[in-house]
């Protein structure tokens, strides 16, 4: 009987904790609270966890230097668990319970998409870092997407294929996800301008482990190059399997395939001729940037700091996380909001974000306006290839 009563009490206690937790309201303190929703578990944790690392580094750096106008920056982090329902719930919790001035999310397109109505409903600025331009026109008054869309950066690899390699026929090998959908849409849109025709389109599931059927179809088409567009391990497997099948076409890939763990595992295949080129950020290539490159110093500083703190060079996802916080910090600095007057402060922060002008970060230079929440981006993507275990810079936006 005692055991049963114990169980009952336990259950009641758990429910009560949950209840209390949900009832607590925002508490006004003298810090700038910024919410972060990251995929820490689930299929997109490979995007969320590294981004989180970068975010924390920047936030710590700001606070060590006395915060923003003397006010410390406080990151409040929740897991989106790879679910849009959880993503939305986490955002609402950040807004209603934690009283954040703004929140940021770096994860899959579908999930970040579900934040747009939350930010607009609850009138809190939301920064979403989905890598696709498909949702640019749906951001509303309160959402911002300060990151390049596909049509900003794919001219770089397509230009390389057309101009440097003389490719005119391209096959797309695309992930079945919001990211892949963006890729498919914009490849079709941009390629003709570069003088390239898309002659074959194949899709794969994010968890696919055998892409030989798709690669066979590409092999049997008259494509001269493959654009592998994916965010997880399947994209890297595609590179490996294509080379194992003896497909000697040019391969271009999205940045995820340049993640160190894939490059390390599949170095042999990444380095097979004809060379594979991969989109990447200036950050990881700063040593090879021209000395007059305006971003070189910034990248070097961050890289050295990163190695000091975490013991490894930052990847592109680390950089994306870092620059979200830099973007928010820039806005906070200009808005000078009073964190105790939440509603007014959020409005000010939003206005500040809208007036972001020429903000130069790792992945681009951003200029936003009240009518344009993704802004005119000057992208800073670079093309790299792999040689003797090293990444080699191939091309930058000039």
């Amino acid at each position: 009987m005692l055991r049963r009563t114990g169980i009952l009490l336990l259950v009641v206690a758990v429910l009560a904790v949950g209840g209390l937790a949900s009832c607590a309201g925002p508490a006004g303190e003298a810090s700038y609270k910024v919410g972060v929703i990251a995929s820490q578990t689930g299929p997109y944790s490979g995007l969320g966890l590294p981004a989180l690392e970068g975010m924390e580094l920047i936030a710590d750096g700001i606070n060590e230097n006395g915060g923003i106008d003397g006010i410390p920056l406080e990151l409040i982090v929740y897991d989106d668990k790879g679910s849009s329902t959880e993503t939305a719930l986490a955002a609402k919790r950040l807004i209603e319970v934690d009283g954040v001035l703004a929140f940021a999310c770096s994860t899959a397109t579908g999930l970040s998409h579900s934040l747009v109505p939350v930010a607009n409903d609850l009138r809190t600025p939301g920064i979403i870092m989905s890598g696709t331009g498909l949702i640019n026109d749906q951001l509303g008054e309160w959402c911002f997407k300060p990151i390049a869309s596909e049509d900003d950066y794919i001219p770089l690899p397509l230009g390389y294929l057309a101009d440097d390699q003389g490719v005119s026929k391209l096959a797309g090998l695309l992930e079945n996800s919001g990211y892949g959908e963006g890729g498919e849409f914009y490849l079709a849109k941009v390629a003709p301008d570069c003088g390239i025709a898309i002659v074959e389109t194949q899709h794969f599931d994010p968890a696919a482990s055998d892409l030989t059927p798709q690669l066979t179809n590409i092999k049997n088409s008259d494509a001269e190059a493959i654009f592998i567009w994916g965010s997880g391990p399947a994209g890297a497997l595609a590179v490996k399997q294509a080379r194992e099948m003896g497909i000697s076409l040019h391969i271009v890939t999205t940045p995820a395939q340049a993640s160190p763990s894939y490059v390390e595992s599949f170095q042999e295949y990444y380095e097979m001729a004809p060379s594979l080129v991969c989109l990447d950020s200036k950050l990881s290539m700063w040593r090879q940037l021209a000395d007059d490159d305006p971003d070189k110093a910034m990248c070097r500083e961050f890289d050295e700091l990163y190695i000091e703190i975490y013991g490894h060079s930052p990847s592109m996802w680390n950089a994306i996380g870092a620059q979200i916080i830099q973007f928010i910090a820039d806005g906070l600095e200009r808005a000078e909001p009073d964190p105790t007057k939440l509603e007014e402060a959020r409005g000010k922060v939003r206005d500040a974000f809208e007036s972001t002008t020429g903000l130069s970060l790792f992945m681009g230079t951003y200029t936003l306006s009240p009518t344009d929440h993704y802004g005119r981006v000057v992208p800073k993507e670079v093309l790299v290839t792999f040689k003797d275990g090293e990444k080699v810079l191939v091309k930058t936006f000039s």
Partner: protein
Amino acid sequence: MLDLSAILQFFISGVNLGCIYAAIGLGLFVVYGVTGVLNLAQGEFVMLGGMLTVAFYTAGTALVPSLLMAVIIAALVGAMLYRLIIYPARNSSGSTLVFLTLGFAFATEGIALSVWGWEFKSLPSFWGSPNIQLWGATIFGQTPWVVGTTLLLVIGLFFFFGHTIHGKALRACADEPLGARTVGISTDQMALFSFVLAASLGAVVGAVITPLTMTGYGVGMPLTIKGLLAALVGGINRAEGVILGGMALGMAEAISAGLMPSGYHGVIALGILIVVFLSRPRGLLVAPGKV
């Protein structure tokens, strides 16, 4: 556009996938056959096998000892799952037991993530086995290892269940628990053994497929789902059914990925599966007696 080498390539891909799914399904079969529990943590053993082998291997251990250690640890985890979770709840309903294994799977996934991080890991093909070119199609160096392992597992299980005292005892527990007990077979011991066996099988499979598919903390659940579908479509009561189911699923996936309009292959592969389910409601091989 379509030539024979392409068809051959789809076929090879189907066999490859089919073997993976069948091998996972076999782990489900062993536990289900003996204890009647649908073990949704089977994929986690596959994950553990892969991740542990990678961990030992990258630490400098040779491949075989790495794999052995991984299998031993996975087997211990399997024993733990039975002793700490399934055994205390053995009188609960089947659905409660299923969700107990699911809870265990979540926790295992979380532990793997906190220990090894999110990165996907790979291994080189075993002993650097080379790719084989066959009439214009490619067989990856690791594929023969995968197929061979699955075959060995099947043969091993048949021999084990058919010809060893232990195996016969397991079979008896499955068919007639009460009768088994009266002739002195400890159903408890056998159930424990089935979990250990399934965990070891899973771990071996996990290590063998890693060079082909990579492994990460979260690969378990998707693999469990594939293995479950394979086992159910073929008939989870018989090893032959599981193998056939795995092959059917693998083939359906590979062929629809190769021949169907891209973008619809997921729908078509699973659509084929559902049609098979509906047309052979007791599994591809009709199991005698119970369903």
